[in-house]
């Protein structure tokens, strides 16, 4: 009864990363073990600003190292709790650097590539079918008729911007505009806010 007026809730940092990896099929579901490959005192204890921690694993976010002085930047971007205090309160912020992450980060771009690669071959399925599959995979629902039209328009227009890029062949271009479309769906409010 209360929900239709309730405030929307944004996903926290870890589910955002996990969701992006899951829908693109890149999530490594291995469980257990440690991701801390740097010796104890080498986590920024000394004066240097060298951070030996690696965050390129594809495992669930819960396994990523948490270094208080230099939190994984994707986590701090999406309001991970402060690791130095004992309460787990997290604000929900909305800032431009988050948008920059959605637009330009390798995590997003790799996810889009993977999503498009997993689509059935372009010459077998119609664009409508592919758009429907993408919507269902990313947003969990079929697209409305007008959304399909808009998506097709986008694909066409984006393709035009790619024509000017040098050294990109036909097949490569075709995949690119689909990747760009995936990115929009992943960056949308609908993906990141709980209904």
């Amino acid at each position, binding site marked *: 009864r209360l929900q239709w007026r309730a405030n929307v809730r944004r996903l926290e940092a870890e589910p955002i990363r996990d969701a992006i990896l899951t829908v693109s099929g890149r999530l490594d579901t291995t469980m257990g073990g440690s991701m801390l490959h740097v010796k104890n005192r080498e986590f920024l204890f000394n004066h240097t600003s060298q951070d030996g921690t690696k965050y390129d694993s594809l495992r669930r976010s819960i396994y990523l190292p948490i270094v208080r002085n230099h939190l994984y930047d994707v986590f701090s971007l999406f309001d991970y709790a402060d690791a130095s205090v004992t309460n787990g309160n997290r604000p929900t*912020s909305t*800032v431009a650097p988050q948008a920059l992450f959605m637009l330009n980060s*390798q995590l997003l771009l790799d996810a889009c590539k993977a999503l498009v690669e997993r689509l059935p071959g372009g010459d077998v399925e119609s664009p409508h079918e592919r758009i429907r599959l993408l919507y269902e995979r990313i947003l969990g629902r079929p697209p409305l008729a007008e959304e399909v039209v808009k998506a097709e328009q986008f694909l066409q227009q984006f393709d035009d911007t790619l024509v000017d890029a040098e050294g990109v062949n036909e097949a490569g271009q075709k995949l690119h505009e689909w990747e760009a479309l995936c990115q*929009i769906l992943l960056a949308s409010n609908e993906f990141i806010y709980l209904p």
Partner: protein
Amino acid sequence: MHVHMPTRRKMLQHTAVGFGYLALSALLQEQAVAERSLLNRGVNTPANPLAPRQPHVTPHAKRIIFLFMKGGPSQVDTFDYKPKLQRDHGKELPFSKPRVQFSDTGNLWGSPWKFKQYGENGIWVSELFPHVAECVDDLCILNSLHGSNAAHGGALLKLHTGSDNFVRPSMGSWITYGLGSENDNLPGFVTICPTLAHGGVKNWGSAFLPAYCAGVPLGVASQPSSDANVRYISNPSWSPSGQRLQLDMLAQMNRTHMADAGDQAALEARIHSFELAYRMQAEVPEVQDISDESAATLDLYGLNDPVAEDFGRQCLLARRYAERGVRFIQVTHSDTKVQWDQHGGLEQGHSKNAREVDRPIAGLLRDLKARGLLDDTLVLWGGEFGRTPVAQGTNGRDHNPEGFTMWLAGGGVRGGVQYGATDEYGYFAVENKMHIHDLHATLLYLLGLDHERLTYRYAGRDFRLTDVFGDVHRGIV
């Protein structure tokens, strides 16, 4: 045939009936209004929380450039000449050392460097800073700083956030919160090549203040300043026109979603954040690209000198961000070794460090002055503490938070002045003592902010940068 599956939200919207929900909806409406008013403090809106805000009183300065010398430069070897220290070299300190010290220290050790007098008022500066010394008529040298923490971690946090044991917003965040920014397309607080040590991200974080107040780091201390850039600022695959198409479609999608989800401030703010990101993508690379600077300017900052080049670029970037309206720009001098923290090898270490920063700093001051920016730009130089006039080991000095030197330039402060003093050996601050809290209060005052009125309600009380401390030292204006 596609069926549009309704969300739970939509279903409830269409089926909710009864008087109960009318009352509740009134309550929720109030909450939404309160939420909006949080965003709409003053003139800022979800579209632009960074819109400039009026300070409390007439400001002397509109922005700060903080040149942070990590590790703690020694005052008796730089800007706090102590002839008695030279004379009593080797003797025991005649008074008690502080109750809490970082390490064991020995006897008095005169400065290995010579001091000369400069400027109209004959201020003594050591030979470590020949270039900055020429600018002494613009400097207000604060010789009576003191802090409460003798270790780097606590001292950095104290200097940057006002607290060495709690998580608090950084100076730059408070200032951005109080004043907004003069440039829609850039963050209000930028930190260039920050150190990750001793507090790391907390030194530019916003803690409980709104996230737009947090500092945006450019690069990191362990990498050359030529690599410094805002994270995720450019797309390796798409062109700006392609991204524009993406953003347009994204905005459409999000607006449709908002129509279903209800008019929520957070959703609208997110739509705007993408627009700001797009503008940042255009503006930041332009600021970072120093190829439009004249050869004379590059030389002024020391970019032709391989030793000074890295820090020189940082200072040049600082000026470029300053002239575009960024409120708080921090430039950190911190290599991957020990920076200014010479517990041993003082002569070698301080010589190297000074060589790297002297010319760029003087260049920055001269350049700001030439462009008419020095009048309303406050430049702060210093470290988290100073060093002891007594020796540590055979050739080092230990941490000294009891008395140390920082200096200010521009932003309405009196130039060619030494404010406050330490004792005859340069150990303890004695005259016009300025605690870190006092420094913060004074910086805010120079920016037109009353440190007691710039507060933020969190967890039931009003917090401020100076907590419950801080006196403004108006004598420096």
